[in-house]
């Protein structure tokens, strides 16, 4: 799939998709992703394994990640160049969001709090 199509399909990302890709800074097993996201979010997000499996399968089909097996025949997931590009676009979108949130945050606090 070409990059524009993938971007259209995935951006803006769901929290689930974002954290799954974010945890692929190094190749990981499926369960490794769940544990890593748990750590990253200080147990705020417990990814269900059904959700992770579904998302990974879809991303693999769209060429965002690739799969191979380690010596115990356990599946390892690695992000592709396409996946990296999509992540960069998403991160710049989130940066803008973050910047604007900080700039205008003040006016949402009630006076005196």
């Amino acid at each position, binding site marked *: 799939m070409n990059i524009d199509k993938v971007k259209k399909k995935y951006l803006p990302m*769901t929290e*689930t998709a974002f954290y799954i890709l974010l945890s692929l800074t190094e*190749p990981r*097993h*499926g*369960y490794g992703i*769940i544990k890593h996201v748990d750590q990253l979010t200080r147990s705020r*997000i*417990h*990814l*269900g*394994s*059904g*959700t*992770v*499996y*579904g*998302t990974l399968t879809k991303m693999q*089909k769209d*060429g965002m990640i*690739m*799969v*191979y*097996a*380690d*010596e115990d*025949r*356990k*599946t*390892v997931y*690695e992000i592709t160049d396409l996946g990296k590009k999509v992540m960069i676009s998403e991160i710049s979108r989130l940066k803008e969001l973050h910047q604007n949130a900080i700039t205008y945050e003040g006016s949402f606090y009630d006076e005196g709090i």
Partner: protein
Amino acid sequence: MMKVFRPFWSYQVTKTEKWLSEMARDGYHFVKLNRSTRCFYFQHGNPEEVIYQIEYNQEKNVQLPERLLNSGWMTVFQTGCWSVIKNENPYDKIAFYCGREGIAKYNRKILLAFGIMFIYLSFVYFINLSFLTLSLFDSEPIKVEESPMWFVTYTIIGISISLYLLSIYSITSIYRANKYLLAIKDTKHVISKENEKLIKKAGKVVVKRKFGWFYEADRLEKWLELMEEKGFNLYRVNRFGTTFYFQKGTPRKMKYCADYQNRSNENYFQLHREAGWKSVFISRTFLQKWTIWSREYSLSEECPQFYSDSSHLVKHAKRVAITYTSLFFPLIFMYMWLLIFASIPIGLFNVLVYLLVIIAFCTFIIKIWLYYFRKRKQII
């Protein structure tokens, strides 16, 4: 350059890989493959120990993941979506291998094509043979017209029979290969057969039957969870998924999830088992790929979720609904057609049977969509 014809190399890929390694051991190194003539080409050289893997990717010219390159893998040859990679390190030094799912998926497509051909040809043979047998009992002797065109008939018969044999070979061969490639394992029974007999004698076993829960999986989950809360611990489900065996024990908090996948593989089971889910039931039929997963949790814990993203829950229900609808709808249509347009009078009994079948299939479809709408309502 040596050329070797290997027509069915892609059916049992692991065998082909081993064969390539053996050839390398004899000093014949794989160079290229011609997919249309099914020929492998080898260059003669020094005998070497080489490990080969054949890969299928849905996209063309895919590069190897970094980890595989670091493990010593390199691409020898690429043609279309296929690539042959090799590694000259000894087995115990190789940490990573390419996945098998691409090939399994490709094989499944071929399996389906041959399956359709097999059913179609079986049907044609059945009709022709029954006509032939009928005519044997006819009072009038069969008269064969002389015609130079008979050779066309014979060639067609010859081709169709060879296609028939080919489809039988392909189906059995690919089916076996895929089972090996994906290493699908069955569920282990929690209680051994001997222990089960003892519990049965003590009168501690409760057997319940549920038919057609596939059309309302959420109700099955709730029912199982309720049974566990009452102290009936599920320990086995029969192979058709219709009989549930409970042991009278202690009340437990259990989360159940009946999950449908269009196809399941080793990955699927690996991930869920590692995440703490146990499979109590795996359906083995070709069309129905259901797994019932269970997980115990304590009162202080949050209830574990199989799908943490609620949109995935709805998507799952939708997939189930669409699959079953597309399965039953043609059947309903066929029976309707038989009822209304059948040229031969079919008799009252058959009419009643057809009507019953149509009603049953319609209820399945209605049930399955109700299940979908219940799921959708849950998240809104």
